[in-house]
């Protein structure tokens, strides 16, 4: 998997590339408009993480060039602007998703993973992790051949975990992912515990190993049990 990170903030670019690079992809970084343009003309990427405001030009222009050249690279826009117009414009130009700063790296990773899945397997397909098989089109989770009955939140949570396999995800990031609008203010994330417990039980009931490791005081990590 090849991911291009177009971001002028060096520290943010390095964080993203380190997070994505360690598990799922090879990352390249372009820190300004000309170098980003050059890279997308020469190479093909599975996903491009694209900042809108760049020195020397707009990320939206890069997106336009990309589409004009008939490239199929997935595009995730990251922007400091939450305005609806920007979002609509980005998606109309052919971006696959739109993420507003400041985001959690785990959120970014989950979205990049989703874009890559859609691009590389042409839509509805199966995602596997160890003995878990997820039919993304029908949203059905199976352990071996046995279907697991999950609520929508639990399904979301599972996909989120798989998109961040091997990574520690903070409770705040999980809460933000599942309940974006109301997880502000006081840091009381106790309620996510219930959902994780339920997911664990449902998977364990079908004979699935416990992939979800609790990290004390911090969050959770989805990984193959060692």
């Amino acid at each position, binding site marked *: 998997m090849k991911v291009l990170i177009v971001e002028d*903030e060096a*520290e*943010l670019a390095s*964080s*993203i590339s*380190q*997070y994505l690079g*360690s598990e799922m992809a090879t990352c390249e970084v372009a820190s300004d408009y000309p170098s980003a343009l050059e890279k997308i003309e020469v190479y093909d990427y599975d996903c491009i993480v694209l900042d809108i405001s760049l020195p020397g030009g707009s990320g939206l222009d890069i997106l336009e060039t990309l589409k004009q050249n008939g490239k199929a690279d997935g595009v995730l826009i990251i922007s*400091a*602007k*939450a*305005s*609806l117009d920007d979002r609509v414009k980005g998606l109309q130009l052919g971006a696959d998703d739109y993420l*507003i*700063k*400041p*985001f*959690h*790296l*785990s959120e970014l990773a989950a979205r990049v993973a989703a874009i890559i899945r859609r691009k590389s397997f042409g839509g509805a397909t199966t995602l596997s992790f160890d003995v878990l098989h997820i039919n993304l089109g029908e949203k059905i989770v199976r352990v071996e051949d046995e279907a697991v009955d999950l609520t929508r939140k639990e399904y979301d949570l599972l996909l989120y975990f798989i998109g961040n396999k091997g*990574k*520690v995800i*903070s409770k*705040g*990031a999980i809460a933000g992912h599942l*309940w974006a*609008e*109301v997880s*502000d*203010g*006081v*840091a*009381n994330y*106790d*309620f*996510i515990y*219930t*959902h994780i417990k339920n997911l664990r039980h449902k998977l364990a009931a079908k004979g699935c190993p416990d992939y979800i490791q609790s*990290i*004390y*005081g*911090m*969050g959770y990590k989805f990984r193959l049990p060692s």
Partner: protein
Amino acid sequence: MKLAARYNRINLGVTLGVLLIASAAFYFLLHRILVHQLDEDLEIEMVRIQTYLAQHNRLPDDGLTVPDMMVRYERTTAPMEGERYRSLVMHDVAENHTNRFRQLSFPLHVGSAQYTTYVSKSQESTEATLRAILRVAAATVLLMLAISTLLNRTVLRRLWKPFYRTLEKVKDFQLGGEPLSLPPTRTDEFRLMNNTLETTTGKASQDYRLLKEFTENASHELQTPLSIIRSKLDLIIQDEALTDAQSAHVSGAYDAVQRLVHLNSSLLLLAKVEGGQFASVINIDVETALKEKLEAMSPHIAAAGLTVQSDLRSASWSANPALSDALLNNLLSNAIHHNREGGTIRGKLRQGRLTVINTGSPRPLSSEGLFTRFYKANAESTRTGLGLAIVRQICEVSGFEVAYRFENGTHRFSIAWTAEPSA
């Protein structure tokens, strides 16, 4: 009192006073002139009598008297010195009723006989003239007053029209809205006022716009460093060698960043709402929106150990969808976070009115400060203190009324809006 009415009153008073004094002066002056004329007539008569006496050495016959003069000779032993004029009331023989007369008395010597001669002339015609003149004067005064009042009413109203038009415009003026454009006027004072107002409001608008832009830019600029901090924290926790103490530090940093993120997005939302960036309005089914919101918040509500009692009926309002959502969000999240363990949240929805009632602090909150920015009921609150400010701001731009009441130990927040007849 209106300026015009005040001016009218003063004007009327002064005019009336001046006219009264002038009338009085006019009356006395005229009276004096007329009396003086009478006196001259009397004097002519006196001279005639004296001349007659000097020529004939006897008193003139009555028949020689000028028709409207009454002459009387009175024999006396103590003749008067010189002549005397006076006014008096006497019986008028010719007209057979009492009348005011002007009388001249003077001494006469016919041989050794001493007489006091009284020559009188009726003042009636003089007074009739005076009365006529006074009537004309009074009528003129009244007419002038009436005309001036009428003129003041119509002319002043017309003259002051630009002033009221300007006032109307200024009343409707809103910071951040359309620039103030005042109708042209030919009156210098009003033109000066309009120019000054336009300049001042223009400057205020500009300052306001700059401030808003500043807030918005500052918020945007903050997003990137916040992103970096958060991403670095996300990376730090990947380290398996973190000690518990380090984890606790990171956790604290996470919470602080979360608060900053929330604060920043709240400020940005406020700036955008004020800037009218949510202009498009649609009809929103509040009942459905509220149910969805309660469902979305159910984990928070459960975690806070609260029970929800909802009494919802179908209702709708016209609002921007993003703002409507933010409004419900802040209203409910306020009711959750300022509640107490085991408390309740009651939602009551009727067409035109939404009330959210929550248990919480046993004391009423300051309904003044409650909706201001950064208001915090208790100092250690980790909330931004912007939630209700956002609620009020959204209500303001959406034309809703928000109110707070403390009743039976519960905090009631109600939002009232004008229900559309079709809904």
